């Protein structure tokens, strides 16, 4: 076995120990607990509101679109901050590159806007 693979032996030992521990604890619980099944216990939530309707319910898509747009510009910011800090060393090349990046993203925003995504219906 190479040195490289030997280093992973620890990982394997830990993984095995973790699995063993979980199995032990769950197994002990299963052995000693009493079993009294009732219909109530089979419901997804034992307390609170009873679930109604099929599992594949429809939900409003607009939250997701806004969330998506937010993530988009959030990630853009993640790129822009470090770039701004080192702008001098990138020089003109860096400026143009980031310009292209922002323009392309802005085109996406324009598209979303024209598609009426930004209107809250």
């Amino acid at each position, binding site marked *: 076995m*190479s040195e*490289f*693979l030997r280093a992973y032996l620890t990982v394997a030992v830990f993984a095995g120990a973790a699995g063993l521990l979980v199995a032990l604890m769950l197994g002990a619980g299963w052995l000693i607990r009493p079993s009294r099944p009732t219909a109530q216990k089979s419901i997804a939530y034992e307390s609170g509101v009873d679930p109604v309707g099929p599992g594949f319910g429809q939900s409003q898509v607009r939250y997701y679109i806004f969330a998506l747009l937010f993530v988009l510009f959030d990630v853009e910011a993640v790129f822009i901050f470090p770039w701004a800090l*080192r702008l*001098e*060393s*990138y*020089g003109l*090349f*860096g400026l143009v590159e980031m310009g292209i990046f922002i323009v*392309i993203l802005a*085109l996406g925003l*324009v*598209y979303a806007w*024209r*598609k009426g995504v930004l209107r809250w219906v």
Partner: protein
Amino acid sequence: MTPAVIAQIEPIATPEIEWFAVSPLLVLVGGALVLLTAAALARSRPPRGFYALFTVVTAALAVACSALLWQRVTDPGRGPFTAIGGAITIDGFSVFFAVTITAAIALGALLADDYLRREGLDGPELYVLMLLSGTGGVVMAMANDLIVVFLGLETLSIALYVMAGLHLRRLESQESAIKYFVLGSFSSAFLLYGIALVYGATGSTNFGAIAGFLSGNVLASNGLLLAGFALLLVGLGFKVAAVPFHVWTPDVYQGAPTPVTAFMASASKAAGFAALLRVFVSTFDVYRLDWRPLMWGLAVLSLLVGSFLAVVQSDVKRMLAYSSISHAGFILVGAEAASDRGIAGALFYLLAYTFMVVGSFGVATLVGGRGDADHGLSAYRGLSRRRPLLALAFTVLLLAQAGVPLTSGFLAKFYVIGAAVEADSYALALIAMLSAVVAAFVYLRITVAMYMGDETEGAEAVTRPAVRVPPGAALALGVAVAFTIVVGILPSPVVDFARDAVPVLLSAP
């Protein structure tokens, strides 16, 4: 900020951009962005077929740029070169794939035109995504660096995930998009891990540097490198739909809108093979004894599983999906030979296959009818009576896929078989040819339905809605059939094109 401070900042060496080298990419991306923005800002709807026309013109421009690049790389005085800091290679290989993928874009756009109107989905999105996805494919072919391969792969794939789910009202389309996305991301992870391991073993992601390192050093323990090979093969094998990484193919091909399937089967497969050939056959050439058996296994499995499972299908799109798996096996036969002739054979096969498969799925687009649902074998029953020319075109394309002489498909098979025999892989060559016979049964079943199935269900054939053949699709089919036959009879120009497009290994300057 004083001048003194500015002087302290050490400027980062930014690479020189050779605009000429990336001109096909720029044309494709530029076309996509212009189309998207213009379509979004336009007050009124453009005339019918404008989007498709725009896409075809963009593709034609990209081909023109590729032609100029071809002149440059085949000019003995100048030859192939790397650009953008050694990130991409411009050689015959890149140009070949630029042409192949762009052809797939143009044909796919022609097919999509009427399809989108028919399904009430008309808009620029599919064309934009097709152009962007194609760009990713060309990037993969041009890549001279594993990271760039990954970049291209993701651009190609992410656009394809969306395209697969573009048919909003078809549940199968949504299903195929999700399946493709989940499995595709999974395989991307494999590829990325493979890249990391190869980097760990060789100290570089640049192809030239990796090849230089591998030929210059003998590794005491190469477990890391071999694991990297295996993971890379998994990632790329998924993209080209080689068994055992094929399970997504039938579902996704069946569910995706048919013009998208046509594009997926041609461009995405071509791009995957571009990366596979450049990474394995060209870069890892020194370790061919290690990866050739793997490739052998993939080829045999793809050939057998693809052709045998195609036989038991009843849906034409699924049949074509499985047959595309067996075609991947054939191309792998060329790759397994690990020789220049093998690569050239694989390239010839890919170009011929692009036209055959786009044409075949093009026919499926038309026969599928409104709702893109009518893909059972029974939909083709008696097609020769209702649409004799369409049936004839499909027959030519199917026989070409079966490898009947005087079609490009036969030459393609002949080419890769020749390469395999030259590399002493007799068993592989024989398995390939026999699985072609099995696959031929599938194609014949479809022709039987078209030509000989009219008597038993004559009444039904009358009540079926007429198959419309819109001009755009007719043009695409005409081009595909003409290419298939002309190259089958006079293959020399394409043979030479493929021969001169064997990849070269260049280190970063």
